């Protein structure tokens, strides 16, 4: 792994104003770094602000406070962002949870994959856009027979593969994946996680992997951050985090991972007891 810091998030905070009175502190003073070639996981329950962090990193939201640096470029500074817009918008790619709504239903698969190249005016290295799409599809394990299909004709796992192929077409350096496996079956989840791992090794990009399934995160990521109520409560290398979790919330999350063993599973504490334990702590 390279020591070069690709993404540097410093004291990021974001507030949503629902009305004049009601404000929600979605992200509260979060700082972390991603090195080149590193897979960083972000876990936490829904509403803990993981997706908001991802969206701030991708310039979907403008953070209320704090700074985000991508290769030394301040993403929150409009002028700096504008100067490097082309590079930033192609080298960072986003993968969404719901592949159903992330893909345009009226476009064929090859058009979807080739669209970013069209927008960024990239000359396809393999001749035509269609050939380029076919090459990318091959990388994510789809054969050429799917080129002319429409998204509704594909299964959830296949659609997620198309979304990954579209992101890879721009040869990104940073991939932000917001719960990419949450809506898939366990056996398909395994396929997609393997694909992420394999592609990361081939291309060497960094991944910010957001999930609530800790077992998958343990398998895929190098480092993991745990978020709770907008705060990053713990960040550690994956082995350290699972073997010796420091924060009580992390402990309760880890103990909630289902074990595929009926006797052990039943001997465990109930969810309420676990919650109580960490509330007391």
């Amino acid at each position: 792994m390279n020591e070069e810091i690709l993404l540097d998030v410093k004291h990021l905070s974001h507030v949503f104003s629902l009305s004049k009175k009601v404000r929600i502190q979605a992200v509260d003073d979060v700082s972390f770094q991603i090195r080149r070639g590193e897979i960083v996981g972000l876990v936490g329950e829904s509403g803990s602000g993981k997706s908001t962090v991802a969206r701030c990193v991708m310039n979907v939201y403008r953070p209320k406070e704090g700074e985000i640096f991508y290769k030394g470029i301040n993403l929150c500074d409009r002028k700096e962002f504008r100067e490097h817009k082309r590079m930033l918008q192609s080298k960072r790619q986003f993968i969404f949870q719901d592949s159903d709504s992330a893909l345009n239903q009226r476009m064929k698969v090859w058009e979807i994959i080739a669209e970013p190249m069209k927008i960024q005016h990239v000359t396809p290295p393999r001749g035509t856009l269609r050939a380029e799409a076919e090459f990318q599809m091959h990388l994510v394990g789809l054969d050429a027979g799917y080129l002319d299909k429409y998204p509704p004709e594909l299964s959830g796992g296949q659609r997620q593969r198309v979304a990954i192929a579209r992101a890879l077409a721009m040869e990104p350096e940073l991939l932000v994946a917001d719960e990419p496996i949450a809506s898939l079956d366990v056996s398909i989840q395994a396929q997609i996680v393997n694909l992420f791992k394999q592609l990361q090794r081939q291309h060497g990009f960094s991944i910010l992997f957001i999930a609530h399934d800790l077992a998958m995160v343990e398998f895929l990521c190098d480092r993991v951050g745990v978020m709770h109520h907008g705060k990053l409560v713990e960040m550690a290398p994956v082995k350290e985090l699972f073997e010796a979790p420091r924060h009580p919330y992390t402990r309760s999350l880890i103990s909630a991972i289902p074990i595929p063993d009926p006797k052990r599973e039943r001997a465990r504490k109930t969810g309420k007891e676990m919650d109580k334990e960490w509330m007391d702590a």
Partner: protein
Amino acid sequence: MPGLLEVNHLSISFFTPRGEVEAVRDVSFSLNAGEVLAVVGESGCGKSVLCKGIMKLLPPIARIKSGSICINGTDITGYGERDMQRLRGKLFSMVFQDPMSVLNPTMTIGAQIGEAVKVHQPRIAKKELTEKVIGFMELVGIDKPEERMKMYPHQFSGGMRQRSVMATALAGNPKILFADEPTTALDVTIQAQILDLLRDVQKKLGTATVFVSHDLGVVARVADRVAVMYAGKIVETGTVEEVYYDPRHPYTWGLMRALPAFSKGQDYLYAIPGMLPTLIDPPKGDAFACRNEYALAIDYREEPPLFPITDTHYAATWLLDKRAPRITAPVRRWKDE
């Protein structure tokens, strides 16, 4: 003694313009009172169709082709919509995956639970109704029911919504509860709470539950018995201990190995190769054969029957035939550790 619910050789097909989709093929199982049966399989294997088929909630293009559904010894296979309506809620109820699409966003939670109670007791007094609603909300573990019953679904979190849906499902005091992936849309911690709640309620009220899931990890927590479904058929069934500690069907092995817990320390996760076959024209022989690394020649020709392993444990694979080669399951046994 006949079980509470007896399903015999049930086949359900969808008659679509593209042909007949055989979603459920020759499924038999029984459910005893107070028992939790988990139906496990990938999406598209027919597990939801099975539940909805028993409750007759399928669209008109779906038809029960053959087989019978008996409840308490009464055959309800031929029941029409009017008869079924009398049974729904009282005899069986259903909890769906996505609680937000089940709840009415313009009604308060209390009104929705109340509505379900009223269906079964139309003449109930207002005061008594409120008491009942509060009772159900307490049963499913919603704190401060007096205040919360005046709130709307959007003010509830995902876990609380699922609890409210369970309260409406339990309002008619059903004998059987169908839970169709009730925790898939929830986080790990909330998921554990809802599973505990399911078991809790089931113990308190003695409701028999059919729990549908794609995650074997979740099933271990709640189920008494497990049925593994593949391509519309039950391929292995047994008590939870039998299926987890001594799985026999290659598909069950595949499902187990796909869990990250079984791939600890390995470089890649195991994934079952290939995809589900289309059920428009199901393949000849064992539908799993083309994805099965242990497939025998006979798997492509003839469909395996359910071989008994014990009185309660059955699996449909030719590997259990006495002429088949001995294969040790590639699943690490947790018990031995």
